[in-house]
Each structure stands twice: as C-alpha cells, then as structure tokens.
C-alpha cells in the first residue's frame, strides 16, 4: 500500500473499500434485448424536463427524437427502440416521486439499426456548434451525476480552460463499465476527445485511469494517435479518486476552491463513457438510446457489462440477468454512492452506471453506537471536513451552524465517513437531510 501511494499520484485522505471488480472486468460488453415495454422519463438529467415532440399512438423509429430540450439546462431524449408510443404519463422514479415519462411498446423484432441525423463535422464545427450537438444528442454525465454535458463544457465568461481531464478512474466498487468502454471503444474516446478539445479550447487532455486498470492504461497509450495532444496518466487506487476535485488535485496539484467549479482552476473534466458517446454519436448526428452498465453483486447470476437501451425497466433487466431468491437490496450505481431502489418498476436512465444487488445475508443492519470520537471519519474525508462534529450538530438540529462553520455544503456525499464509522452512524444520510433543509431555508429567504 505504501509503495503504491508513493509511486502514484493521489489526494490526501480517502478510503480503500474492496474493489469487487474481478467478476465483470474481463467480460466484454453485450447487447441487451428490448423489453416488452420501455419507460423513457422526460427528466433523466439535472435541470428542466424535456418537452415531448411525439403523441400517443405515434410510431417512432429507433434513434428518433422523442422530446426536445426545454431551455439551456435541459437535453433531448431519443427513442431507444422502434416502437409505438403507448402513452405519456406519470411513472415512478428513483426517488419514489412520480415523473412524466414516455411509455414505448417496441415492435416485435425491432432492429438494432439507428436512424441517422445531421452530423456534426469536427473540422467545420465551432465550439458552439459542438455544444449544441451534444445537447441535441441528449448527452449527460454518464458517470452517474447526469449533469447536462454541454452545460459543463460551457466555459464561463472571463475564464479559459487549459486542461481537459477524461475521467476513467471508476473508483466505485463493482462497476466496470468505464473499464470496458476503455478497452472496447478507444476510437470513440479519441474522437470524443477531439470534439471536447475543440469545444473547450483546452490545449491538452489527460486520460486518467486508476492503477487497478494498468492494462487499459497501456493499451490506451499504444493506441493514442500521434496528433492528439493527450496523455494517459495513472492515479492511485483509492476512493473517491474519481471525484472531480480529488482527480484534479491528484493530476495537477490544483485545489478547486470551496464552492467553486473546475473551471476556476482552468480545468474541465468529462467522464470517459460520456466522451466515448460524444465520439460515437456526434459524427452521425445521433442521440443517446442506450448506455453501458454493469449488472453485478452477489445476488446476480449472469453478471456482466451490458449495452442496455435507456428506458428498460429494472425488473426486466434483473430477470434477464437472473436474480437470487434472497435478493433484498438493489441499488443503482456503486455501493458507495448508489441509490437504493424503492421498487423494481423504475427504468434504467442515462445516469445509471450499473445496478448491484445484494442478498439479505449481506445487508444485516449494523447496530448504531454513539460517536466515540475515533477520528476515522476525519481521516477519511477527502475534503477535510469534520464529519464527527457535523454528525453531532445534525443530531442537535443545528443545520445553519453546520453550513456556516463546518462547510456542510462542500460535502459531495462520497460516503467515506459512513463507510469507516465504527459506530455505524448514517452520517451521509444526516448530511443529505441537513443540506436539503439549509438549501430550502436559504431559497426561502
């Protein structure tokens, strides 16, 4: 461990959860079949829901535009399969809240062919053209945040970007989607990097890979086109190395200011799968209709990496992958930051990087003890917050103090503090609640 820390760049603090990637890291991406009914929510991203441009009963082709962006903080939606629009109605979302969604009934034997659109030519496009094409393609951060990529790439007035970081760290346990994309879609990634360099004006790109994927780093280095101003760099295996602020610190030694954005230190970071999608879709003017996810965890029989149509109901996906009798907890994303599902009837969306299922024997509730000041959380927090103190203040309901004195709003909920807490205090859960309350109160003022 110490040798790894010395030889590879990283950030201070963090944790080392078990990787649990061996089951799926070497399994090639497989195409997932179409479900009998698909549910495409109009809001799969942070921002305003898209506006439907189809009507009930209409037949749509795979790849056809279903909904257009409503303003700048919004992206387009495309049909994941050739289908009939059954209805546009409320469907359960991950948070348990009902949101508007387009229900599609795919035609039997719907082909994998995708209709082409207006290509975005790399040579002639301006940065604005590329951002618009990314928005029209419905691209959002595929790492899990689902933040509209074109908004992220928009360089604020008065700022300039010198480095583009392509984030292939994938530090969440179990997930191997970025890994497989980097093995199988290197051409798409390099094309995506070209679009991104042009869109942001960055002088160079760094493709960052965690040291548990050295094979990928070597392969990417070999395949790197000579004229592409990019390097492949390896960072230490540590969680949350893939967090934007931690990655920028590790690669460039720059600290994104508290409350600031990567552009404040002249950097923009884009997830590697997002980059690959940009490289794959923009030259053909297509939109996102599918994404790569890892289906894994001890309660899954056919573990693997799948290219799955957006809108596939989770129940269908789980039944296809084969689930254990004793399935008791399913979460979208990795075990550190993923969200547990309230029901199996919600669809896979653009932000779903995987789903992991545990059996009931793995989810036995751990007894909660009082905080004993062990300082494990203080040593784990990558942002140097004091989770112990924040937890005590949350218990006392002192939310304003948490925000004003202890930088609550900097917390990005990586889960390191809860992971190491020997008292099994649900710290992150308390911080989430506190953040929501503080934001609501501040918005009301």
């Amino acid at each position, binding site marked *: 461990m110490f040798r790894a820390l010395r030889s590879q760049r990283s950030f201070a603090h963090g944790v080392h959860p078990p990787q649990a990637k061996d089951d799926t890291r070497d399994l090639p991406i497989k195409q997932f079949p179409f479900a009998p009914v698909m549910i495409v929510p109009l809001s799969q991203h942070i921002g305003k829901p898209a506006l439907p441009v189809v009507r009930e009963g209409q037949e749509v082709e795979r790849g056809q535009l279903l909904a257009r962006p409503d303003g700048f903080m919004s992206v387009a939606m495309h049909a994941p399969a050739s289908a009939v629009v059954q209805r546009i109605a409320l469907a359960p979302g991950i948070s348990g809240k009902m949101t508007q969604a387009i229900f599609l009934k795919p035609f039997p034997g719907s082909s994998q062919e995708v209709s082409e659109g207006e290509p975005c030519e790399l040579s002639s496009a301006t940065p604005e053209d590329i951002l618009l094409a990314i928005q029209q393609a419905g691209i959002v951060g595929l790492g899990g945040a689902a933040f509209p990529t074109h908004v992220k790439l928009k360089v604020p007035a008065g700022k300039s970007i010198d480095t583009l970081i392509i984030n292939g760290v994938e530090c969440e346990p179990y997930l191997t989607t970025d890994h497989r994309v980097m093995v199988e879609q290197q051409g798409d990634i390099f094309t995506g990097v070209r679009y991104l360099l042009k869109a942001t004006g960055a002088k160079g790109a760094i493709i960052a890979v965690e040291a548990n994927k050295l094979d990928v780093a070597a392969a990417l280095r070999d395949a790197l086109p000579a004229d592409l101003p990019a390097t492949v760099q390896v960072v230490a295996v540590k969680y949350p190395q893939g967090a934007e602020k931690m990655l920028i610190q590790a690669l460039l030694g720059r600290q994104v200011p508290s*409350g600031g954005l990567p552009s404040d230190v002249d950097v923009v970071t884009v997830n590697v799968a997002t980059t690959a999608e940009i490289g794959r879709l923009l030259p053909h003017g297509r939109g996102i209709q599918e994404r790569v996810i890892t289906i894994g965890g001890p309660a899954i029989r056919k573990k693997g990496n799948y290219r799955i149509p957006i809108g596939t109901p989770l129940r269908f996906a789980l039944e296809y992958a084969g689930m254990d009798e004793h399935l*008791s907890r399913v979460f979208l994303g990795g075990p550190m930051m993923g969200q*547990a599902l309230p029901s199996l009837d919600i669809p896979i969306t653009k932000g779903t990087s995987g789903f992991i299922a545990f059996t009931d024997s793995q989810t036995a509730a751990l007894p909660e003890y009082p905080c004993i000041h062990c300082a494990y959380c203080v040593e784990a927090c990558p942002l*140097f917050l004091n989770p*112990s103190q924040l937890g005590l203040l949350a218990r006392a309901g002192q939310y304003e103090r948490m925000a004003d004195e202890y930088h609550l709003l900097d917390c990005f*909920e990586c889960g390191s503090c809860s*992971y190491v807490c*020997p008292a099994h205090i649900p710290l*992150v859960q308390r911080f989430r609640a506190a953040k929501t309350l503080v934001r609501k109160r501040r918005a009301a003022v």
Partner: protein
Amino acid sequence: MSERRRTLEIHTSPHIASGAGVDVIMRNVVYALLPVAAFAIYSFGLAAALTIGVAVVSCIATEHLLCRLAAAPSTVRDWSVTITGLLYGLTLPPALPLWMAACGGFIGVAMAKFLFGGLGYNAFNPALVGRAFLQAAFPAALTSWTPAFADERFLTLPASTLTLPFAAPVYDGVSGATPLALFKFEDRLTDTGDLLLGLTSGSAGETCALLILAGGVYLAARRMLNWRIPAAILATVALVSWAAHGLSPQDYPPAGFMVFSGGLMLGAVFMATDMVASPITHAGCVIYGVLIGVLVCMIRFWGGMPEGVMYAILLANAVSPHIDSLVRPRVFGTRGTQ
C-alpha cells in the same frame, strides 16, 4: 415470477461498511490491557487480582444497573465499561481496601460516564475520575504501597485488603515506597532498567513500562489508538525534564526516570488516548499531549504530591473540546481564504 413477493430494503448510501465496529475497537483495548493486568497480578499477587477484579465488577455492575434503572438497554456489551474497570483497577494501589475500590468504580462510572450521557459523551476519563474521587476521599489509603514480588504474595492478603467499610485500614509493617516518592521525599533515584521491567512498587498496573508500551504499539498498529498523543506526552516530559535536569541535577530527576516512572506510561498510552475525551484532529492531539506533558512535569516538580499524571490528564480532558474548536482541519479548497 410476478406472484413472488419481495421486500426491498431501502437504505441510503453507502451500502457497504468497513470491518471494525465500536465493540471490536473496545475489545482490542481490553486485549492490549490483559498482559498489563497479568503482570500486575504476577508482581503484587492475590491482592492485585482482587483489587482489579473488584474494580472491573463494580464498574460493569454500576453501568448495567444504571441502564436498568433508566429503563434503557444495557450497554455493557460494547466493552467500553470493561476498559474503564480494568484501567481503573490498574491505577489503584494493590493493597487498597476492596470496599474503596468498589466505591471508586461506582463513582467513576455513575458520575463521569452515565450522568454525562454514557459512551461517547463523557467529558472526562471515567477511570481517572473514579481514582480522583478516591484520592480526595481516602488520601492515606491511596498512597500506601506494598512492595512488589513479596514472597507470600500468592498465599496471603495484606491486612488492609479486607478492611470493613469505613474502618481505618491497617497496614502490615513492610511498605514499598514508589520510585517517585523515593525521589521526592528521600532523594533516591531508581534504576531505569527496573522501571522498564516493572521491578518496583506502585499502582497495580503502572510498573512495567515495557508491557504497557507493547500494548500501545499493538493498538496503534491496528489504528485503534492515536500514537501522536503518547508520543507528544512522552517527548514533552523527556524534553522538559532533560532541560531541568541539565540546569539543576540535584533538584530535578533525569529524563529516563521521569518518563518510565509512576503512572506516566499507563496514563500516556491508555488513559490520555481515550478517544471520547481527547481531540479529534492530529494537530489537536499533539497540542493535547504537550499540555499533559507540561502539566505532569509541573505537578511532579513543584506540587505537593510525587505523582501528577491523573490530574494532568483530567485537566487536559477538560480543554479537549476547546482544542477541537480551535484547531480545525483546513477544508479542501479554502487555502488563502477564510
């Protein structure tokens, strides 16, 4: 498929946790203390075994009964009160009347732990509060020592051990003054080798510096003890006494003697490192350790008593929350700003 009903657990992230729980940490501290307790019994015999036993039982019983009284689930299974009992017993003179040992255990757990809200909320180390109570209530009994390695120590008990409650204890003729008392009152210096090996007189568990250090190293290696606290305490005491001894060798003892004598090693390794009552940041722990070291030297040099570790740690416990609010980690991305 559809008729099979499933219950899905909804739980917020993270969905995995690392191994050690509070009870595991506490149990390991008990493991680290067991060799120290074993040596105490070996060197002071039956009396030490009874004193430590009564101390442990009184602490555990107090916590259990108070939890029952408060109609709350008993917390004795988290092992923390076992540590309190062991530590408290190890700080007592081996020939202490047993009823006094029981009283101190009750006071320490009831007043310093339970009244503050139980584990995690105690401002002071309960074991030391129990001992401080005894020191105030029965100063003579707390400074009456028996010699180590007495011949009949496994066969006979000192007369004082079985003293009836509130009767004045009677001590056998032989007394074993502690190295600190010998230095303070008789100007006699004990050999450092004897201090390391525990060949001297003193409180039951404070004599063998090497075993205590070994326990500390074990816990520090398992990240269950912040080594910065004992390191800061011992370094401070060594530095201050080295300077004082250099200036005036006849008034002040040499550094080796200061570091390895009395309750300093036990206090620095096992008492000051009580997670609940010590600061949370590394920098805070160093400040806290230095403070304890300075206080120990001040009390030992200029106080009326030969030993000052207990009061030094209790005083530092009191300022520990203030150290935490003064010394905070610099939040990521706030360099150069406030």
